[in-house]
């Protein structure tokens, strides 16, 4: 476990450079740091480094504020990042070199939900969720967790002295883009993050131009849990951005709500959209109760992928749905 000792040495250095005033020191220190790193830290006593980490051309050290409002000081761009959620796996591995990610969730290896299967490397520890033992074993510079991570485990990891960044918002398309932006900020890859976000908006502009001025069909989302999505959900945003009107929102539904077949009949959607896949679509189309619903009558029930991406890949869902809603425009 030699890397454990290295890490404790590193944290001893970084403890010295905390003063904000010293951050804007000459970038020459960075060059010195690279030199020192190249020759190995053990050659020089730690006391030589108080200023070494205090300046960084990339804007480190920096203070980031997580979803809970907690300030986290990052002395340098994290080199060992622990991800405790698929949403972070996807964005992290889209932004940073795989070498900087020490742990990913097992879902990152599942091509159904993962966008980064090809970025997985042997050195990465596969976790189910947050795990304190594996955090200690991988010695991360920062641990990315969600508000749905086990809070007791989060507290234990913080008590052990690790930096934990909690993300709290995953509901809307804007939340997905904000997660990309924040992970860029944490990792020092903000330019790359902004590029991904800009690419999202560039592609969305193309969609918006094509659907401009066209009539917006009334769309209802439905899934295998009989849940529809109202205001404040990514699916709502996707429907609206793809040129539809989200019926659930029109009827005042907020967030995710269970609705029954009766409500669907009463709402009379022109299009039903789901993420469940072709079997679920066939089930709706063949449901005797729903035969008088316009969407079913006209065969306009679609399954769209990427609606749960929680990142810039939402654009794929918007593009796909736009083609279903406005086939004549594409």
């Amino acid at each position: 476990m030699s890397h454990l000792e290295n890490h404790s040495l590193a944290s001893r250095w970084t403890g010295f450079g905390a003063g904000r005033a010293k951050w804007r020191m000459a970038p020459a220190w960075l060059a010195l740091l690279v030199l020192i790193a190249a020759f190995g830290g053990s050659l020089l006593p730690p006391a030589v480094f108080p200023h070494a980490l205090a300046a960084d051309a990339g804007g480190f050290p920096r203070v980031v504020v997580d979803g809970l409002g907690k300030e986290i000081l990052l002395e340098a761009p994290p080199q060992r990042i622990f991800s405790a959620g698929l949403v972070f796996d996807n964005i992290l591995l889209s932004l940073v070199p795989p070498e900087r990610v020490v742990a990913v969730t097992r879902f990152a290896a599942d091509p159904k939900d993962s966008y980064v299967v090809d970025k997985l490397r042997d050195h990465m520890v596969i976790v189910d969720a947050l795990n304190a033992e594996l955090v200690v074993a991988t010695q991360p510079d920062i641990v990315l967790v969600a508000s749905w991570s086990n809070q007791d485990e989060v507290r234990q990891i913080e008590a052990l002295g690790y930096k934990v960044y909690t993300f709290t918002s995953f509901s809307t398309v804007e939340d997905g883009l904000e997660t990309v932006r924040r992970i860029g900020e944490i990792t020092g890859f903000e330019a790359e993050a902004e590029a991904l976000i800009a690419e999202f908006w560039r592609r969305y502009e193309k969609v918006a131009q094509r659907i401009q001025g066209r009539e917006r069909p009334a769309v209802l989302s439905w899934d295998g849990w009989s849940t529809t999505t109202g205001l404040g959900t990514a699916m709502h945003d996707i429907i609206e951005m793809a040129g539809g009107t989200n019926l659930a929102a029109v009827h005042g539904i907020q967030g995710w709500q269970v609705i029954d077949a009766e409500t669907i009949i009463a709402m009379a959607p022109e299009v039903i959209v789901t993420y469940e896949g072709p079997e679920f679509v066939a089930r709706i189309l063949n449901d005797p109760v729903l035969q008088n619903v316009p969407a079913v009558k006209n065969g306009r029930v679609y399954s769209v992928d990427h609606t749960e991406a929680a990142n810039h890949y939402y654009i794929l869902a918007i593009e796909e749905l736009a083609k279903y809603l406005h086939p004549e425009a594409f």
Partner: protein
Amino acid sequence: MRESSALGVEARGDAGREIPAAFRPARPFPLRAPLLTLWLVLLLVASVTLGAAIGVVQLPFWDTLWIIVARSLRLPVELDPGQAAIIWSVRLPRVLVAGLVGFALAASGAAMQGLFRNPLADPGIIGVSAGGSMGAVVAIFLQLHTVSGWWTPAFAFAGALLAASLAYALATRGGRTDTATLLLAGVALSSLFSAVISLLYHFVEDGILRQIVYWLMGNLAGRRWEHLSLAAPFVLAGTAGLMLLATELNIMAGGEDDARSLGVPVERVKRAVLVCVSLATGAAISVTGMIGFVGLIVPHMLRLVIGPDHRWLIPTSGLLGASFLILCDLIARTVFSPIELRTGIVTAIFGVPFFLYLLMRRREMVAWR
């Protein structure tokens, strides 16, 4: 109607049929219980060692032992900080909390089955578990868990005590507590609290819902030394109280009227048992959430071996319960690694078949009465 004793203090067989060992009063071998206690202590030591030595991160067994010895004796030696953190700060507190909670639940279960003269009574039967759960869920619902980690246990403990007091108040008339009413009141209150918890599901966002589910399914992940020191005083006081009441419980197993005529202050004993059980169980579930079946099956296993004498049954149940929960938790966190099961799932998977077996045995007994 004469009090029928499910625990068999007055058990007798009809037509020469053999009485199941669980309901046979006399211990055929007088040294059985002390010997068993010794074995259970050894089992507990082995369980703690195993629990600390095995985990998702594989560490050499002797290093593990050395870290535990060095840290507990505060030896001035250099330890690998990573290994020491995993063993001493992550794994050992978790194992010891599991042991403490298992001890509390099983010892309380033994006492409750004795008090209610009902083999299906568990420590939660008077509403303690459901009340504790509701307290915790309310704390999570109010998002107090993000303010400090101690609000959830505090609310859970308060909820548990409140529920038990309420059930007790409902069942007490003119200074006498009817155990059948108490049991029914407990069950009714539990259902009510469960319904309120389910109701809250509809009004919370995903993140909060997950925290609630972690709690309801019995959660030993992320336990720290603070959790142990928080629950230990109440658990130790409560179970010690139960052990002191063992003789009275033995006499009351023969029926409350008989006990009264023998000079046992029945109502005072009942109240004392309920207070002890509420303290121990409430404190236990306040640090881990609901963990089912430990309090139900462990005392029954021991009844089969050493009979119904509460003087031995309560401490041995505690010891076996501690080992049982530590081993169940070990299974939960290692077998499907990296997936970590909730400990409550493992105890239920082992508990349910045994519970059904008990039901079969009970039906058989009813049949020949």
